[in-house]
C-alpha cells in the first residue's frame, strides 16, 4: 500500500509544528524521516496515526484520501506504529498484549487464547523472532518487547509500518537486529517509515531519506550521503561531528579518589576500591557498559550514596560524609544522568530551574525573599548564552525538547564557581546539534582549568571527549588508559579483561 501525506500543516498556538509537509512511502521501501528532536517528526506521525487532526492537508492511501479520527481508524486502514515508548501491558503475556483491542473470540464471546497464540507463532516464525506467546512481557528484554510491538502491528495487517525512534532504547546489537527486521519487512512488501535522528542507522537501511527541520521538509537526501552531509541538512548549517579540542594542559591533580568502596541497600558491594585522580584542565571519562557502578560513583561524589568507605578529596578537602548541599557549595557542578528525573523540575519554569540549587542565597534571595527581578535578568542572560530555544523564561521545563532541557541543566551547573565538573551521560538522547553544543561546553570547562569527570556509555564519545579513559567493570576500575587506545582494546576492557 502506498502512503502519501500532502501539504500537512499542524499548529499548536503560535507554533507551527508541521508546515506544508509532503511525504510518500512506497511499498517495499524504507523511508527514513530524519530530523532533530523538536523538528516535528513525532507530530507528523501522530497526525498520520489519527492522534492529532491536521489543520490543513490530506492523507492518501493508494491515492485515495482518508480521514482518521483516532488510532483505531488508522489501524483498520492498515497503518501500524511501533512507538518509542512501548504501548504494552507488562503483566500480560505476549499473546494477550498482541490481541488487545481486537480479541479473537469463541462462541459466546469467550476469549480464544489458542487462536491468539497461533497468530503470534505464525508471525514469529515468518520473521524468525522466536517469541514464546505465553511469556510475560515485563520479563522480556527491551529488544524483545519491541518485537512484540512489531508483531502487534503486523497481526493488525499493517501495510504501512511506522517506527518512531525505535533504537533509542536498544543496545548496539539489538539495533543491528532491528535493522535486519526492517529489511525483512521491506522484502515482504511493507512500506516502512523509520523516524530517527541517528545518522548511522539511516545510512544503513534507508532507500529514501526525507529531512525535516523546524517543521518543514528541507529536502530529500541521497542514501549514500555522508554523515556530515546529512547532519548539516538536519541542523541547517555545517556541523562538526568530531569533538574539537586542543591538547590538554593538565595542572595539579586537585581531585582524588582513593580506596573508594560503596554498598547498596541490600549490602552488596557496588564500588570496589576505586582509585583515580583528575588534574586541573583534564577530562577523565569513565567508560563502561551501563550498570557497572558508574551511577554509584557519581552519587558517592555528590554525597548521595549512603554507605561508602575510602576517600574522595577535592582541593584537599574530604567529600565523604558531606551533604549534597555542602558538596555543591565546595564547587562541584553535577549533570545527572536522567535529567528529567534528577536534573529538572518539569513543572517549574526555566527561570525557576536555573536557581534550583541556589534558591536560598544571594543573589537569588535576600533573607527569605526570592529576588525575582534578578532571577528574570539572570535567566534571560543564560537563555541567550546557552542558546536555549524556548518561547520565554516562563516556559516550563516540560515544554522543552531534550536538548534544550540539557542546556538548562548545563547553564545552571556551569554558572557557579566550579572546582570540579561531573557529568553523567551528558548527551544521552540528544540530537546532533545539541550534542555538539554540550561537547563544546565540556571542553570549554576543561580549558578553564577545571577537572572534569564524564560518564560515557558510548565508545565514540569516550574516545573523542576524554583525555584519559577509566574503564569500569562490576564496580572496579579495570584500567586507566589514554584516549588513543584502540577501540578493540577498550571493548575488551569493558568486558572486564584488563589491558
Amino acid at each position, binding site marked *: 500500500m502506498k502512503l502519501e501525506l500532502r501539504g500537512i500543516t499542524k499548529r*499548536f498556538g503560535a*507554533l507551527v509544528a508541521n508546515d506544508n509537509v509532503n511525504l510518500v512511502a512506497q511499498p517495499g521501501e524504507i523511508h527514513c524521516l530524519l530530523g532533530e528532536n*523538536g523538528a*516535528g517528526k513525532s507530530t507528523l506521525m501522530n497526525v498520520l496515526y489519527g492522534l492529532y487532526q491536521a489543520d490543513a492537508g490530506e492523507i492518501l492511501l493508494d491515492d485515495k484520501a482518508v480521514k482518521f479520527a483516532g488510532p483505531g481508524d488508522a489501524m483498520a486502514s492498515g497503518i501500524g506504529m511501533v512507538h518509542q515508548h512501548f504501548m504494552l501491558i507488562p503483566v500480560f503475556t505476549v499473546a494477550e498484549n498482541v490481541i488487545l483491542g481486537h480479541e479473537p473470540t469463541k462462541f459466546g464471546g469467550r476469549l480464544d487464547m489458542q487462536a491468539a497464540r497461533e497468530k503470534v507463532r505464525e508471525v514469529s516464525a515468518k520473521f524468525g523472532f522466536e517469541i514464546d506467546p505465553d511469556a510475560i512481557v515485563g520479563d522480556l528484554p527491551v529488544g524483545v518487547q519491541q518485537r512484540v510491538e512489531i508483531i502487534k502491528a503486523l497481526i493488525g495487517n499493517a501495510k504501512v509500518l511506522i517506527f518512531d525512534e525505535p533504537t533509542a532504547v536498544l543496545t548496539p546489537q539489538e539495533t543491528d537486529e532491528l535493522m535486519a527486521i526492517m529489511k525483512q519487512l521491506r522484502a515482504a512488501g511493507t512500506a516502512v517509515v523509520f523516524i530517527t535522528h541517528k545518522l548511522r542507522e539511516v545510512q544503513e537501511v534507508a532507500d529514501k531519506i526525507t529531512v525535516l527541520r523546524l517543521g518543514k521538509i528541507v529536502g530529500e537526501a541521497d542514501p549514500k550521503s555522508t554523515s556530515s552531509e546529512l547532519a548539516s541538512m538536519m541542523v541547517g548549517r555545517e556541523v562538526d561531528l568530531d569533538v574539537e579540542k586542543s591538547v590538554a594542559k593538565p595542572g595539579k591533580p586537585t581531585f582524588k579518589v582513593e580506596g573508594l568502596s560503596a554498598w547498596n541497600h541490600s549490602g552488596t558491594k557496588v564500588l570496589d576500591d576505586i582509585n583515580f585522580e583528575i588534574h586541573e584542565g583534564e577530562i577523565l571519562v569513565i567508560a563502561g557498559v551501563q550498570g557497572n557502578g558508574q551511577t554509584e560513583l557519581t552519587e558517592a561524589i555528590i554525597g548521595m550514596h549512603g554507605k561508602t568507605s575510602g576517600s574522595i578529596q577535592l582541593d584537599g578537602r574530604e567529600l565523604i560524609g558531606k551533604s549534597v548541599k555542602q558538596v*555543591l557549595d565546595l564547587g562541584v557542578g553535577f549533570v545527572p544522568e536522567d535529567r528529567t528525573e534528577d536534573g529538572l523540575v*518539569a*513543572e517549574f519554569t526555566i527561570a525557576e530551574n536555573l536557581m534550583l540549587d541556589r*534558591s536560598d542565597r544571594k543573589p*537569588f534571595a535576600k533573607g527569605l525573599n*526570592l529576588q525575582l527581578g534578578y532571577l528574570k535578568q539572570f535567566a534571560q542572560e543564560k537563555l541567550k548564552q546557552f542558546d536555549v530555544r524556548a518561547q520565554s523564561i516562563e516556559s516550563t521545563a516540560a515544554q522543552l525538547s531534550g536538548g534544550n532541557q540539557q542546556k538548562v541543566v548545563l547553564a545552571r551547573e556551569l554558572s557557579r564557581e566550579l572546582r570540579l565538573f561531573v557529568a553523567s551521560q551528558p548527551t544521552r538522547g540528544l540530537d546532533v546539534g545539541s550534542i555538539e553544543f554540550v561537547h563544546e561546553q565540556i571542553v570549554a570547562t576543561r580549558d578553564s582549568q577545571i577537572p572534569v569527570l564524564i560518564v560515557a556509555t558510548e565508545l565514540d564519545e569516550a574516545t573523542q571527549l576524554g583525555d584519559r579513559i577509566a574503564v569500569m567493570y562490576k564496580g572496579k576500575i579495570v584500567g586507566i588508559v589514554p584516549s588513543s587506545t584502540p577501540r578493540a582494546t577498550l571493548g575488551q576492557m569493558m568486558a572486564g579483561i584488563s589491558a
Partner: protein
Amino acid sequence: MKRIMKEFTGGSAFLSILAVIASLLVGGVLIALSNQDVQTTATYLTARPSDFFHALWNAVFGAYDAMFRGAIFNYQAQSSQEMFKPITETLAYATPITMSGLGLAVAFRSGLFNIGATGQIIFGAMFAGWVGIYVDLPWYIHFPLAVLAGIVGGGLFGALVGFLKATTGANEVIVTIMFNYIAALLLGYLLKTPLLQAPGAVNPISPPVKDSAKYVFFLGDQFRVHGGLFAMLIAVVFVWWLLNRSTLGFRFRALGHNPSAAKVAGINIGLTYILVMGISGALSGLAGTSQILGSEQVLTLGVAASYGFDAITVALLGRSNPWGVLFAGLLFGGLRAGAVTMQADQGVPVDIVLVVQSLIVLFIAAPPLVRSIFRVKVSKEAVA
C-alpha cells in the same frame, strides 16, 4: 495518588467554578425530589403540569433563596442589623475553614497529603485554650501569647508527622489519620483531668477562656464574627508570600513536583518535610485558636467540628492556591450559614448542604465528568 495530588494542585479555577455550579444543580434536583408538594403534584403531572412546575420552582427557588438570605443578605428582615447578620455568619464560619484549608494547601503543594487538619486544630485549640484559661496577663500580652501557643501547638503536632516521615519513611496519609484519633482521644482524656476540666464539672468541658485572651468581637457581641477574620486574611497573604515569593516555598514546591531533582539540587528533604508539616499544622493550629479564643470560648470535644475535613475540600476546591482557598472557604462558610435558614424556613434538611459539599469533591475529583457536562473543550495536544 500522584494523580489525585495533581488534581489538588493543578487544574483551573474555571473547572472549580463549574464543579460548584454542577453540585448546586444536582442539589436542586435533590431538594425537588424530597419536597412534599413536588411529589404530590407529580402524581397528576399529565393532568395539570403547571401545578407540578409551579411546585418545582417553589421548592428549588425557595430553598436557594432561603440559603441566600441565610448566607449573604436577608432582605426580608426588619432591622438593618438582621439584614446584615447573614454575611457575618458566613464570615464566622469561613474563618477556621479557610485557615485550616491554607495549611493543607501548603502541604499539598509540597506533595504531602496532610489529612490531619482535625488533629492539628485540636492541638492548636488545646495549647491556646490552656494559655487562655489558666494564664493571667494583661490582654496585650495574653492574647498574642495564646494565639502563638495555638500556632505552636498545631505546628508541633504537624512537624512530628514530618519528622516521622523524614526519619522512618512513614506514609504521611496514614500517620495523619491516626494522629487525628490520638488528638481527639487525648483531648477527651484531658477534659476529664484537672488539667483542663472545669472545676466541679461532670461533662468533659473546660472553664471559659479569660476575656484578656479572646479575639475582639469587633461588630459587637450580637455578631459571631471576630478578630480571627483578620488573622485569616493575614494568613492568606502569608501563604501567598510563602509559596510564591519565599525561598522556603520554592523548596517546598520543588519537593512537591520532583523530590529526586530537589535532592540532587542539595535540598535537605527530611528537614523540608518537617518544615512543610510544621507550617501546615501551624495554620490549622491558628484555626484552633479561632475556635477556642473566638467562636467557642470553652474547650469541648467538638472544638474542631468538621472543619478539619471541610478544609480538605476547601483546599481541593481552591486548587491549593491561597486566593482560591479564600474563595472556597467563603463559599463553604456561606453554605453552612445558609443551611440553617434553609432548614428553618423551607424545611429542607441541612444534610442537603453536606450532599452539595460532597458533590463538589466528586466533581473535582472527576474533571472529565465536569468537562463533559459543560462541554468544556480541552486542548490535550501538546507539542510533540
